[in-house]
């Protein structure tokens, strides 16, 4: 029997170490520094251009001016009053919107009847930009709190519904089939198994909802408001106070980061089963 070898001789010249294709590890501090570098550079550029007069403070207030404006608001106590008023509206609106959307999402995700009755309707309503509802809502609720809360509720309901529905739909059908066989039905199945499994989606939705509620706040507090973070934007616009305009942006950014941190914390504490890495063998 003649055996033809694949390669005649394993000549060292023909061999090479395999090129490393895996992920290269990166120094954590270097990574952190790189992440922080671009925002820092932007801040420095802002400070430099405005303090040197390269950009008129009519166009963009300097960091100093913005800090002073912030100090003014803190001194008069307006900042806390405004923040509190906005948080109350946003909290109530998001609470109602998210609560209703969560139930609707669960119902249409869980039952065929619910899906048939709820989903098509909600999907149609969902594509309407909620800002288009402002005039209609004013004619229904007036310009007081009810209008503001309703607008925020509607704005936060649609992402929560969509994500909850998706989350419930993507829960492993096989697991549901199994636990139903073990006698878990109805609300106990929904609360004990499906809701926790859909929690990552729901928290993601909550993050988006809180972001959108800020948009809702600006729209809602433009009319009939005497306090609130959205009212501050209107005020800055009316009096052409560039420092306040920039301050509003900074405040919104700070709120956004705050919301993100809170949700991250909730994600970590509310889903202990995900903290432990999988140790499958």
């Amino acid at each position, binding site marked *: 029997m003649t055996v033809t070898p694949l390669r005649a001789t394993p000549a060292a010249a023909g061999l090479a170490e395999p090129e490393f294709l895996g992920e290269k590890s990166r120094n954590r501090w270097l990574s952190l520094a790189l992440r922080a570098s671009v925002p820092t550079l932007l801040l420095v550029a802002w400070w430099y251009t405005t303090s040197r007069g390269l950009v008129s403070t009519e166009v963009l207030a300097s960091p100093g001016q913005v800090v002073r404006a912030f100090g003014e608001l803190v001194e008069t106590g307006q900042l806390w009053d405004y923040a509190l008023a906005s948080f109350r509206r946003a909290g109530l609106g998001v609470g109602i919107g998210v609560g209703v959307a969560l139930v609707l999402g669960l119902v249409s995700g869980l039952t065929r009847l619910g899906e048939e009755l709820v989903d098509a309707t909600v999907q149609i309503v969902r594509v309407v930009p909620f800002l288009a509802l402002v005039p209609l809502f004013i004619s229904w609720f007036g310009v007081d709190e009810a209008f503001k809360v309703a607008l925020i509720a509607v704005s936060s309901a649609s992402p929560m519904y969509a994500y909850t529905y998706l989350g419930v739909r993507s829960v*492993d059908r*096989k*697991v549901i*089939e*199994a*636990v139903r*066989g*073990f*006698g*878990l039905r109805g609300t*106990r199945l929904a609360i*004990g*198994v499906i809701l*926790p*499994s859909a*929690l990552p989606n729901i928290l993601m939705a909550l993050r988006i909802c809180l972001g959108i509620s800020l948009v809702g706040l600006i729209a809602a507090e433009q009319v009939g408001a005497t306090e609130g973070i959205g009212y501050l934007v209107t005020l800055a616009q009316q009096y052409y106070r560039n420092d306040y305009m920039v301050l509003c942006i900074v405040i919104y950014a700070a709120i956004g980061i705050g919301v993100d941190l809170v949700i991250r914390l909730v994600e970590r504490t509310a*889903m*202990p*089963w*995900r903290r*432990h*890495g*999988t*140790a*499958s*063998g």
Partner: protein
Amino acid sequence: MSDAVVRLRGIRKSFGDRTVLDGIDLDIAPGEFVALLGPSGTGKTTLLRLLSGLQRADAGTVLVPEVRTVVYQEPRLVQARRVLANVTIGQRGKAARGPGLAALAEVGLADKARSWPATLSGGEAQRVALARALVRQPELLLLDEPFAALDALTRLQMQELVAELCAAHRPAVLLVTHDVDEALLLADRAIVLRDGGFALDRRIDVPRPRDRDGHAVIAHRKDYLAALGVSPDRSPRRSDEHAHA
């Protein structure tokens, strides 16, 4: 067989124009361990799903006991509940804790009661699924290829464990599998499902504990492989072995 815990009469089930169960009759006695063998797509799992109420027959009667539980090929644990809560799932109150812990101890996982399912290995997760099925003290235990997804070593251990636990608790068992050796190791009776009917239905009167390579088992194995269509003369490798033996 008036005291059967499972009674199937004239079961028919088709998917499209393919008839997978064509007038099946089956009785399972209390405590009887039945293995159902068959090539893929012959309707083994369909039969099991009829018994667990997940599918309906086109014709015929299905009678099953009140308390019946299933172990599937995948553990199907709820990731968001701890191991003990998974075992006692669907049972109300604190009273379920004691039996739940006892069941975990029986499968050798007493110390994992407070673990999350994601931290378990494949074999451990499947043992939790077994504890979950046994804690209800079922009259009928349905096993849907419960060892198929395990690695070879773990599979052997799980088979021994199932043999022990079934001997201790004596539920009626229907094991769906494609593994002849597994069926012959565990079952009181092994059935080959083929072309909509039972091609072979025989009691396996081999005393336990069984030797996987004992003479009595090997004698059965040849017949079962033949019934499954893996006869020695059709499988060249096996015919070689026999020729040279």
